[in-house]
């Protein structure tokens, strides 16, 4: 059994409790020392996952740049969390419902939302993150979208669909009442839902040790009589497998799973955040390099002879091209109109909104 010893740097205290070693809540892993499970991800898919992870990283870096140039607004990058974002989403089917948070554009992308929509979102244009995909708009309030996933899962089951729902949220999200109510409902109704908690160590400036007294987040499943799993969130193949397996169990009627993906937020919370105010650069450094999810999957694929240094370069170049195209496409979109703001409040505009729109149009701006 491999324990997540990487969470402790040499001579360092564990920086957050998610990192504590708990035999009863082992961390599931495919790549690296003490592998607990053989890889079952086919080569082609592993490669696709890798490409998407690079794409996500490239995208985030681009978005950070655009933000500095004032071309997009506040942006929450998922730097360091690519394995969980991409690995999990590849384990889903198109029929599955996704209930994401603000940081889950990677998972949304895999599920079918183009990156230009993500740019639009960052340009302050809501609506761009739901599309022709089975996804809710990214939840801004923390964890309050978890009950939606439960309802979506129940609706799918009631209608005889071969679909589950998955909710994405962070370690901070486990403290909200709605986390509890959602998991409890899921347990009572045995809803086919997956709760994917990305324990990235921090909720803005609050370490996970301040978030809860429990040694792991996965063990919170016990409170609801549901299944809990910890997975190495920087191991894309392990994440894929745990989500896949949870999905199959859910569809087979075995109920929900709470997955704690242990990972790390390498960047700021958002572009408005300055993480040096509250955490050591050493701590961040310890998660770079070998523990970087892209480096790890790259090395693994290389070892397996699945991709060469040349491929690697090509993937990077292609990613940059795609991202640039997405930015161009987004910036070329027609500007927003006042009508957008009025017409989607209700299916039919009530008289007062018609009146307000007319007033607006009658005014100078």
């Amino acid at each position, binding site marked *: 059994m491999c324990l997540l010893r990487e969470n402790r740097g040499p001579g360092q205290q564990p920086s957050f409790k998610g990192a504590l070693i708990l035999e009863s809540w082992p961390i599931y892993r495919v790549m690296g020392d003490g592998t607990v499970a053989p890889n079952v991800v086919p080569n082609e898919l592993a490669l696709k996952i890798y490409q998407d992870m690079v794409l996500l990283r490239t995208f985030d870096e681009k978005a950070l740049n655009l933000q500095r140039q004032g071309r997009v607004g506040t942006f929450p990058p998922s730097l360091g969390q690519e394995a969980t974002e991409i690995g999990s989403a590849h384990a889903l089917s198109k029929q599955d*419902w996704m*209930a994401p948070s603000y940081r889950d554009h990677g998972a949304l992308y895999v599920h079918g939302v183009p990156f230009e929509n993500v740019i639009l979102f960052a340009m302050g244009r*809501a*609506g761009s*993150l*739901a*599309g022709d995909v089975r996804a*809710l*708009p990214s*939840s*801004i*309030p923390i964890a*309050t*979208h*978890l*009950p*939606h*996933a*439960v*309802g*979506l*899962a*129940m*609706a*799918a089951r*009631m*209608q005889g669909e071969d679909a589950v*729902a998955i909710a994405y949220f962070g370690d901070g999200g486990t403290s909200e*009442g*709605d986390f509890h*109510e*959602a998991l*409890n*409902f899921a347990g*009572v*109704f045995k809803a086919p839902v997956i709760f994917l908690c990305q324990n990235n160590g921090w909720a803005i400036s609050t370490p996970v040790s301040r978030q809860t007294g429990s040694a792991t987040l996965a063990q919170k499943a016990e409170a609801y009589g549901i299944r809990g799993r910890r997975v190495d969130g920087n191991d894309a193949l392990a994440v894929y497998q745990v989500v896949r397996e949870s999905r199959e169990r859910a569809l087979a009627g075995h109920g929900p799973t709470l997955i704690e993906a242990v990972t790390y937020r390498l960047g700021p919370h958002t572009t408005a955040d300055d993480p040096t105010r509250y955490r050591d650069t050493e701590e961040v450094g310890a998660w770079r390099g070998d523990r970087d999810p892209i480096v790890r999957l790259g090395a693994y694929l290389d070892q397996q002879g699945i991709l060469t240094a040349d491929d690697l370069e090509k993937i990077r170049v292609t990613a940059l091209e795609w991202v640039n195209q997405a930015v161009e496409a987004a910036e070329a979109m027609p500007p927003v109109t006042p009508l*957008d703001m009025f*017409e*989607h*409040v*209700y*299916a039919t505009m*009530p*008289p*007062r909104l018609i009146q307000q729109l007319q007033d607006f149009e009658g005014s100078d701006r």
Partner: protein
Amino acid sequence: MPEQNMVQALNTALHEMFADDPRVLLMGEDVGKNGGVFRVSGGLYDKFGAERVMDTPLAESGIIGTAIGLAVGGMRPIVEIQFMGFLYPGLDQLFSHASRLRTRSLGQVTVPLTLRMPYGGGIRAPEQHADSAEAYLTHTPGLKVLVPSTPYDAKGLLYAAIEDPDPVIFLEPIRCYRLGRMEVPEGRYTVPIGKARVARPGTDLSLIAWGAMVNLAEKVADKFQEAGISIEVLDLRTLAPLDKEAIGNSVAKTGRCVILHEAPRTGGLAGEITALIMETAFWDLKAPVARVTGFDVPYPAYAWEDFYMPNVSRVSRVVTETLKD
């Protein structure tokens, strides 16, 4: 046509809807075997089973949140909140999600959800079981808020609610549940959302009310009738969107207006209605618009209930004053 009280009319409506549309569900605390604490859902569980009539864990946010998911996912959930005062832990689901998902997704994600709950006072219920919190909801864009005051409107508005593609809050005045019977048609019919009802036409003053206050307004109108004063009673029925036209027309005609509500005065819906009258009938006003409401205190324990609630004497006094000018 059968004569029914409001509980019976609602119960019949639910039975019909369940039979008509397999997407319709009911969920909430004690709505199953127990049929809800006021028995509005009586018999549904036996007829349609635990899959469609779901007793839930005791968690309002979880109930509403799960129902939002069910609605987005293709079902037509009806939620019962046990009393309006227990809606508060679930308000975030309404304010942050139910009311915004359509807008946030530019129309791609919609929430056809009906949220029913008993509200208001007057039956000596325990503390915190008699709140009238409609003004929290009517200030929330994206929601609709309905309040029937008669069995007929109750059934017709519930049909309108459940057929509406957006989230609708359906407030059931506890005081009216068993207040009286009237003929209620069998089968589907709707009362339009957004349309007030002239409960009693009149020419000298408009009394605007909803829920249990309509009955009070009618009593006051009766009393003044004897003195030869003709009071128009307007039952708003829909609190969001308000029927500005009907309000404006009535006050333009009478030139005098008193608004009634059970909720505490400050920030209650009477203020909004006053502002609408400013927009529609200011030049017709012969006296300031006045209001008779609950006092600015938390709804008291029931030993004080009679002090709190607007009654014929308090309303009459303000009506008389408004007629004076």
